[in-house]
């Protein structure tokens, strides 16, 4: 189970993510980022033409999520690609090894400047699911 909700923010984008596992929360966050960069791009069974591996170590699970998204954003811009799929090979609260795959694009629909730490707090909610807010600078 994973849920992505776009909430109001006066100038940027506030996203609420919820999932029944930490792995799914990371997959949901990547899905939300790709959807912002190029809405609908990953919907129609894209042929995957590019794959990259990510290895990130951070101080806790919240910074790990934001650092993961920042790396994914950098990768999107430097490779000029949208990464639709995340395969997590290994994960702890402070480390993730993942393979991301996607396809090349000519341009992006949204100018996502950065993924911020502001308001981010990965924690379990009352239902036992993992959730957090992510603010994206556009």
């Amino acid at each position, binding site marked *: 189970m994973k849920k992505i909700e*776009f909430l*109001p*923010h*006066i*100038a*940027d*984008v506030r996203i609420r993510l919820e999932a029944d596992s930490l792995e799914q929360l990371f997959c949901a966050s990547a899905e939300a980022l790709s959807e912002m*960069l190029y809405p609908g791009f990953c919907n129609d069974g894209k042929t995957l033409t590019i794959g990259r591996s990510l290895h990130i170590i*951070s*101080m806790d699970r*919240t*910074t790990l999520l934001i*650092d993961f998204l*920042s790396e994914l*954003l*950098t990768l999107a*811009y*430097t490779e*000029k690609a949208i990464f639709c799929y995340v395969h997590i090979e290994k994960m702890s609260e402070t480390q993730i090894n993942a393979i991301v795959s996607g396809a090349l*694009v*000519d*341009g*992006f*629909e*949204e*100018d996502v*400047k*950065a*993924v*911020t*730490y*502001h*308001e*981010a707090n990965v924690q379990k909610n009352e239902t036992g699911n993992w959730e957090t807010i992510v*603010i994206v*600078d*556009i």
Partner: protein
Amino acid sequence: MKKQHLQKIEDYLWEIPRSYNANMHVPARVYALEGLIDAISSDRSLDQLVNVATLPGIMKASMVMPDAHEGYGFPIGGVAATQYPDGVISPGGIGYDINCGVRLMVSKMRYEDVADRMEDLSKELYKQIPSGVGKGGMIQLNRKAMEDVLIKGAEWAVDKGMGSLEDLEHIENHGCLKEADPATVSDKAKQRGLDQLGTIGAGNHFVEIDVVDQIFHEEAAGAFGLQKGNLAVLIHTGSRGLGHQVATDYIRLMVNAMPKYEYKPPDRELACVPFSSEEGQQYFKAMCAAANFAWCNRQVISWEVCKAWENVFGSYSDCPKLLYDVAHNIAKIEEYTFNGKMEKVIVHRKGATRAFGADFEELPRAFRHIGQPVLIPGSMGTESYVLVGTNKSLELTFGSSCHGAGRRMSRRAAKRQVNAPGLQEQLKKQGIFVTAGSFKGIAEEAPVAYKDVNLVVETVHRAGIALKVAKLKPKAVIKG
């Protein structure tokens, strides 16, 4: 935070006292006329302003200008000065788009003589100036050229024939921060910038043709070369992906470094380290390099404007001349008087414009006796302003003023509310030609999404931190 937490000091100044929060080192101050206070207190701007007041080494007050709105970490429109050299530097106080800024070129051409060419001009500008996300420009830098751009700033473009040496006199810091060190900029950041010189990007960035509509300050307008009825070109963009990556890299580095300095700010996006620390120095040098990239970018865009001008009007020499180029996302080492003594401070401006008054040596001779031009773009389809900085701004706001109209509606709400093709048509009927990469961009930047720029400018004018010189009205807008 509610409006009632604000104490009115003057018609244009409000304060949240230190007593509001035990962690505040200084009070928080809001420069705004009463008509703007509801909008400013309706989002999290004031909470964020209070958080800024807790930064180690902050001096006098954390401040926001009248165009303030919620950001992430710092509010947009924020000004904070910290003690030099051991107070903190915080990348969040500068923003991801390092040296996002505005430049104004002024023309001797009268609008009434070329009114029927505005649509052609807007199409030609759209052709000459690459816009949109992930779109590269006509210049492809190699690694060596990138290093040169990061060191030399706008001068790099002038050396390549894109502008004149006189242009450099008309740019904040002459378009180059000498502390820049390319070695502190990551390979990823450099890679993202290789094809982005001369591009405006998307979001609220634009190139706009204006007509000088009203003069408020004859002497300053004369010194600035602004004449009622003449054309002007306003350019708003920054350091593109290179600057975004520098900020991302260093905020991450500082989040990890903060425990070493026993800093625990109320928001991780306020990540900071002592300016004098190794991390602080590395960031400052990288920020200066990114700022130089932005000045070079706007210099190249001016050259592209001139190419469009030549293609439409047949003469490159008729191209508008640069009046001024000023940053509104930056940190600077500046000197101010505290208890009768001059002290250096690290001034963070995040969505705030430097507004220095007369006799500032860096200014060109033509208007050194008047003060620095302060450029305030309105929203698409509404007025923009040229103001002049004052020495009072040095006393009140660390030489800073507002930077724009300031959003009052979210982009999503604007998209829901605004019929973009209808707005484009309506503006065309008013004689404003909007050329954009998408209807989404037009809807998000619709005038209804912004505060009343007249009220914003009136605030800084009445406060005496920048005075009204001229009002500009848009005639053609190019957006990503």
